[in-house]
Structure formats: structure tokens, C-alpha cells
């Protein structure tokens, strides 16, 4: 390619429409950040459960779990701080017109998010410091603010997102400028309770399955000592409790969408035209003419689910109820519907897994140990993340073309800067590096924890391997296989409690 051609390419690229790039960049960075959120919210709670058990029952395995988890947590928190910083930059870089117009309303929940973020950062540090500096019970209590701040912080962020779906609490003057803001109505907008509940339960569900899947994998590899079983049990129990709750909350949110964002609902359920006795279409898509093609229709179910009191005669508004430029495009509709199916499908699968786990407990008084169960459980973390991402796609793509529902369009909010494609490429590359780093750091920590017996005092997550770490002793006689040797604890300690975790 000669110089003039290169120049043509560069001019062409320089003149790219920034809106799709801005959307892609925002989507990509949010989808990355949202993986860290469940860990920030629910891992602390799981660590506290282990911590409580450790104190109450003088349980060394539980203590070790709590200590290690608190340190992993600090790493995921730090990565979340980086990706969160990038997100707050992007509000300005990608959506300056949205922020200029709505910052005074949209920004309110973030003020509180900032507060909780601070608290979470400080108390994570206090909790980690406290292992060696506080008595057990006071130390346990310093972990409680981490749990609360995690929940309230994400409720605040979700409140901002919910406000974009149900904008209330502001007054406009004749030029369309915001002149009055009622912060309470901004934060406690109509969509906020359902969305916040859905996200918090998702955080426990995803966090629980993610952590449990790590231990399930370890158990499949033969590390079936009590430490790993306990780690699995705590995390999986949290997720198994969250799973049925999420069914109910998700259903409530869907009904809220049915009543308040009918066009989004039509995209979710793949309903081109308004009518009653609408089928629930599994998979399938809209063709170019906007008609449903393929898929497995379950007659009347969408109508029935929307309002069981009127059953199959419930009228569901179709996409055609609004002009084409006020609803998601056909492509977007298909994305929303597919994402919905993925979320509900995985959610149902995980729910069944939780039922399996619960029934085994009821009948056998122990967690299922079979390879099939552990195999599925090992995948549950990734599945749960996929379901969460799909749910996020449903809500964000489903409200297109609006950034503020029925008030401001995405294209009116975006930056006019034509070099956004460039920052998008740079950000993707960097995030790949960041993601790899995070996994590497966590794995290095895990290996270091396993090498050293017990609690390693001297390890900043990224610090040099401590010279003072005790040399692991060979595994004791009690352990079948080398899995236990890798666990690195003294054999006699392991023999102390060979019973299943109860």
C-alpha cells in the first residue's frame, strides 16, 4: 500500500461515526467491570461466614479460608478500582453531552457510591490488618462494614442505571435545562428497587458460584481434603440460596419492565405486534420483515407470565406500537431476545443445580460429591458470569435507542469525537493485559498460599515470595494422592477432622 492509500485509510478511519464505537467501548469496559462486582460484593460475606465458623468452632480450615479469601478480595478490589476509574472517565470521554445535560440528576447516586467505595476500601484494609492486630470477635466485626458498603455501593450505582430507565425527580425549564432536582426521587426511582435487588442477588449468586467452581475444580483434581470441601460448601451454599431468590426477583423485574417499558419487553419476548395469547418463544429471531422466525413457541405463556391474573388473555404490547425510530432495531431485538434466553436458560440450570444440592443435604446430610455434580459445579462460575452478562445486555440493549428512557437518545448523548475507535482498540488491548494480570496474580497467590503452610503473614499480593515462609512438609499418611501434598498443610493437622463438612 503506498502512502496515498495509507492516507486514504487514515482519513476514512478518522471520519468514523463515533456512536457505535463509544457504545462498544462502554459496553466492553462495563462487561469487564461487572465481573469484578460480584466478588467485591459477596466475597466479603463468604469470608465472614468462614471467619465466624473459625471462631465459633475453633476451625482452622475455616480460618485459613477466611484469611486467604480476604487477600484475594483485596486484589479483585484493586482491579475493580482501576476499571471503575476508567468507567468514570468514560462518562466524560464518551458521553459528555449526556453528563452535561443530566449530570446533576444522574450524578446524585454516584455521590453515595463514592462514599461506600471509600468505606469498603478502608475496611478491607482494616480487616486485613486486623488478622494480626485485633482479637477475633472485634476483628470479625470490622468485616461487616465491607459487606454493607459493598451492597450499598452497588445499590447506588444500580440506582443511577435505574434512573436512566425511569427518569424522575427533576424539573426542566423552557430550554430543557434541569433547574430543580429532588435527590430522593432520583435515587429511589421506580425501577431502582427491582433492579437493585436483581443485581445484589446476582452478586451473591455469581460470586458464590465463581468461588465454588474453583474449589469444585480442585476437588475434581483430587484435592478432597476438608479445607477444599469447606471452601466449596460455604460458597456453593451462598449461591444455592441466592438461586431460587433470583427466580422470584427476576420475575418481579420482568413484570416491572412489562408495565413500564413495554417496548423493551416486546424485544425480550420477541413480540412484533400487539396482541393477547402471546407465546413464549424459546430461541428464534425476527427476520428482515420483523416477523418471528424459528424457535419453539410455548402457546400463551408470555401473556400468562406477564399477568397471571388475566392469564392467556393478557395483552402484550408489540414492537409495532411505537415508530421504528423509538424501538430497538431488528438486530438489537434479536440480541436482546437471545441474551434473555441465555440468561433464563442458565439461571434455570443453576437453579436445578441448587435444588440437587439442597435435596442431597436434606436426604444425606452432606453435599453431593459425585463427579457429575462437581463437574457441573466447576462450570457454574463461568455459566453464572455468562448469565449475568446476558442479563446486562437485555437491560442495556433493550432500552435502545434511549440513553434516558424516552427523554434522551444515545446518539444525542455521545461524543462527536471521531477518534473514539482508536481509544476503543487501545482499551481492549489493555484490558486483555489487565485481565491476564489479575488471573496470574491470583494464581500466583494461590500457589504461594499452598506452598507455605497456614497463613502467610508476609505477602502483599504482588510482593516477593517471602523468605520467611515455612517450608511445606510432605503430606501425611492420611491423604490419598498428591492433592493433599499440594495443599501443603501438615498431615497430622488434616487427620484431625476427617469428617465431612456439616
Amino acid at each position, binding site marked *: 500500500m503506498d502512502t496515498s492509500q495509507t492516507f486514504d485509510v487514515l482519513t476514512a478511519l478518522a471520519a468514523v461515526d463515533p456512536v457505535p464505537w463509544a457504545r462498544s467501548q462502554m459496553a466492553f469496559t462495563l462487561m469487564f467491570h461487572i465481573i469484578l462486582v460480584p466478588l467485591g460484593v459477596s466475597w466479603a460475606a463468604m469470608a465472614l461466614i468462614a471467619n465466624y465458623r473459625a471462631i465459633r468452632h475453633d476451625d482452622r480450615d475455616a480460618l485459613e479460608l477466611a484469611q486467604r479469601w480476604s487477600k484475594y478480595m*483485596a486484589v479483585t*478490589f*484493586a*482491579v475493580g*478500582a*482501576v476499571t*471503575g*476509574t476508567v468507567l*468514570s*472517565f*468514560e462518562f*466524560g*470521554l464518551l458521553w*459528555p453531552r449526556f*453528563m*452535561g445535560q*443530566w*449530570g*446533576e440528576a444522574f*450524578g*446524585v447516586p*454516584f*455521590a453515595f*457510591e*463514592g*462514599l461506600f*467505595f*471509600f*468505606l469498603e*476500601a*478502608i*475496611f*478491607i*484494609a*482494616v480487616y486485613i*490488618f486486623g*488478622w*494480626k*492486630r485485633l482479637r477475633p470477635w472485634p476483628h470479625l466485626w470490622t468485616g461487616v462494614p465491607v459487606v454493607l458498603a459493598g451492597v450499598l455501593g452497588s445499590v447506588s450505582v444500580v440506582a443511577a442505571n435505574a434512573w436512566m430507565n425511569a427518569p424522575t425527580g427533576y424539573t426542566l425549564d423552557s430550554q430543557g435545562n*434541569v433547574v*430543580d*432536582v*429532588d*435527590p430522593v426521587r432520583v435515587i429511589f426511582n421506580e425501577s431502582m428497587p427491582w433492579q437493585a435487588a436483581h443485581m445484589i442477588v446476582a452478586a451473591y449468586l455469581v460470586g458464590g458460584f465463581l468461588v465454588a467452581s474453583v474449589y469444585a475444580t480442585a476437588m475434581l483434581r483430587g484435592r478432597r481434603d476438608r479445607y477444599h470441601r469447606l471452601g466449596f460448601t460455604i460458597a456453593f451454599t451462598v449461591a444455592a440460596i441466592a438461586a431460587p431468590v433470583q427466580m422470584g426477583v427476576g420475575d418481579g423485574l420482568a413484570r416491572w419492565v412489562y408495565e413500564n417499558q413495554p417496548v423493551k419487553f416486546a424485544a425480550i419476548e420477541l413480540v412484533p405486534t400487539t396482541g393477547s395469547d402471546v407465546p413464549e418463544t424459546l430461541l428464534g429471531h425476527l427476520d428482515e420483515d420483523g416477523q418471528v422466525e424459528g424457535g419453539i413457541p410455548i402457546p400463551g405463556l408470555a401473556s400468562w407470565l406477564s399477568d397471571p391474573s388475566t392469564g392467556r388473555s393478557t395483552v402484550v404490547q408489540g414492537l409495532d406500537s411505537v415508530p421504528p425510530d423509538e424501538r430497538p432495531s431488528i438486530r438489537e431485538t434479536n440480541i436482546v431476545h437471545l441474551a434473555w434466553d441465555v440468561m433464563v436458560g442458565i439461571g434455570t440450570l443453576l437453579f436445578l443445580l441448587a435444588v440437587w444440592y439442597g435435596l442431597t443435604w436434606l436426604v444425606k446430610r452432606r453435599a453431593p460429591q459425585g463427579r457429575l455434580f462437581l463437574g457441573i459445579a466447576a462450570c457454574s462460575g463461568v455459566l453464572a458470569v455468562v448469565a449475568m452478562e446476558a442479563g446486562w445486555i437485555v437491560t442495556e440493549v433493550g432500552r435502545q435507542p434511549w440513553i434516558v428512557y424516552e427523554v434522551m437518545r444515545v446518539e444525542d448523548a455521545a461524543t462527536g*469525537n471521531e477518534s473514539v475507535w482508536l481509544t476503543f482498540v*487501545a*482499551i481492549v488491548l*489493555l484490558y486483555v*493485559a489487565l485481565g*491476564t*494480570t*489479575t488471573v496470574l*496474580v491470583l494464581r*500466583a497467590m494461590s500457589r504461594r498460599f499452598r506452598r507455605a503452610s497456614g497463613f502467610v*503473614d*508476609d505477602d*502483599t*499480593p504482588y510482593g*516477593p515470595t*517471602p523468605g520467611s515462609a515455612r517450608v511445606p512438609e510432605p503430606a501425611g499418611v492420611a491423604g490419598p494422592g498428591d492433592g493433599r501434598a499440594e495443599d501443603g498443610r501438615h498431615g497430622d493437622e488434616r487427620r484431625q477432622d476427617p469428617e465431612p463438612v456439616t
Partner: protein
Amino acid sequence: MSATLVAAVLLLAIAAYATFAGADFGAGFWDLTAGGAERGAAPRDLVEHSIGPVWEANHVWLIFVLVVTWAGFPEAYQSIWLTMFVPLTIAAIGIVLRGASFAFRKAVVTTRARRVFGGGFALSSVLVPFCFGAVAGGIASGQVPSGGRAGDPVQSWLNLTSVSVGILSVALAAYLAAVYLVRDARHAGDGRMTHYFRRRAVVAAVVAGVAAAVGLVDLRSEAPDVFEGLTTRALPLVVVCAACGVGALVLLVRDAPRGARLLAALAVVTLIVAWGVAQWPYLLPGQLTVADAAAPDGTLTALVVAVVAGVLLVGPAFVLLYVLAQRGLLPEEGVETADADAVDSPRR
């Protein structure tokens, strides 16, 4: 009234970010200038040891600054971001690059790979404070228009004032870091490194002084109002700032065991507060006043409530953290290794 309060909070949050994260960035600067793999091993070790515990958690302050700006002064926020798109993008990318490559360097073993990631870490540590400084310089010299409009995308941050404030930021960050590292080296009983960073702290302070002087002279023609503010109502602060800076240097040269850190941090804080006082009542000098830029009362009240709640909740938590950090281990648990288990306290 509440607009003034929110503006003051904003200024203090910027000062906090500058002192806490500034030291992190500055440590990266010393990493960059530490020389070859062998020669630079000792200072790099100290840097790594020093900032490992806080890694990226100090960005909490930056997020807070952004949140207060967009909620409290949305029009100015829009103008700033539209105008300063380039330096702010570089800063965002630099922050990710820094966080990732710092941790990556730990994970790789070969000298070559370590050099690449170390370079990424150190380079971004310089770029980010430069960009933030350039943005601040651009704002101070009136390059950002009001009304949510974009100013000149290049001239706004690549002019003499901006560049000198950018260099000033890098120098101040390096100065802060050197002062902190002197203390850490002394703590670890490393006489060579104490000397090493003491010398560098002095050099950084001199560079910062020169950059500040150049910026000031240029400000006189570019933004006479701000210059006048600095030489009149903000003058006491400027004097305090200079006194603290010189005082810290004297303590360093005399090898005094304590006090230098506090004075150095105070110098940075007073400098930033002086900037705010000097351009008062303007948020964007010559363009937009704080009062005109302010969000409706409801929003400001919410911000004040959040800040008051923050002071009431975060304050005691900070004290607790500080007490714990100073406190010895429980008697039955043996000897403490220096700062080892502070994983990510957002302070030093």
C-alpha cells in the same frame, strides 16, 4: 453557599489525590530513572515494596473528584471533557497500563520481560501526572470555554502554562515519592537508599520550583486574573507552600528522622488550595463562575449530605486504620514484618 462548600470539597479531594496517588506516580518516576537492571535493582526493590501495599486503591480519590464534578458542576464537566479529550484519554489508558504492568512485572521472571513491563509501569507513572497537570494548567489559564463547548483540542493543553504545570506535577510527584521513600528506606535500615532518595528529593524539589516559576510567569500574561489571585489573596497560602517545601528540604538535608513527610505533603496541599483560592470565584477562569456552574440546590444538598456522612463514617475508619497500622501485633503472634500485610490501604 452550598456551591462554595462543594467547590471546597472538590479542591480538597484533588489535593488528597495529588498527595496520596502523587506519591505512587512519583515512585514510578524513580523506577524509570533507576538505571540498568543491576544498578537499579535496589531502588526498584524499595519502590516495589513501598507501593505494593497500596497498588491502585488511591484512585478512590480520583473517582470521588470526577463524581463531585459531574454531579455538582455538570456544565463545566462537559466542557472540560470535550476540550481535554486527548490528555484525559492518555491518563485513563496510562492508569490501566500502570496497574497492569506493575503487577505483571511481578509475575514474569526473565529480565527482558521485566524490563518491558517495568517500562510500561514507569512510563505511565510519568504520563498520567503530566496529563493531569496539563489539564489543570489548561483550566487555570482559561483554555476551557463555558457552555459545555469544546475548546481547542491541542492548544488547550499543549501551551506553556499547561506544559509547565504538567512538568510541575511530575516533579511534585517525584518529590513526594522520594521523601516517602527516604522514610521507608530508613525504616528498613537501608542507609544507602536513604541517601540515594534524599539526593533525588532535593533535585525534584528544585525542578518543581523552576517549573512553578515558569508557569507563574506565563500565567501572568495568559491568565492575569489567576496570577493576581496568587499574588494577593492566595499569597499567604503560596508562602506557606514555599515554607513547607523548603522546610521539608532542610529536614531532609539534615537527615531528620521525622517531619519531612508531613511538610512535603502540606506543601502539595497548600499549592492546590492556593490555585483554587487564586481563581475564585471562577471554576473555569474567565469563563464560568462556581455559582453559575453549580447544579440545582437539591443535587448540591445531596452532595453535602454524602460528604458529611463521609466525614462522619470515613473519618473514624481512617483513625482505626491508622491506629491499627501503628499498633504492634497481638502479644501471642510474634514479630511484625515491616508493613507486610497492608494489602491495599488507600493511605500510606
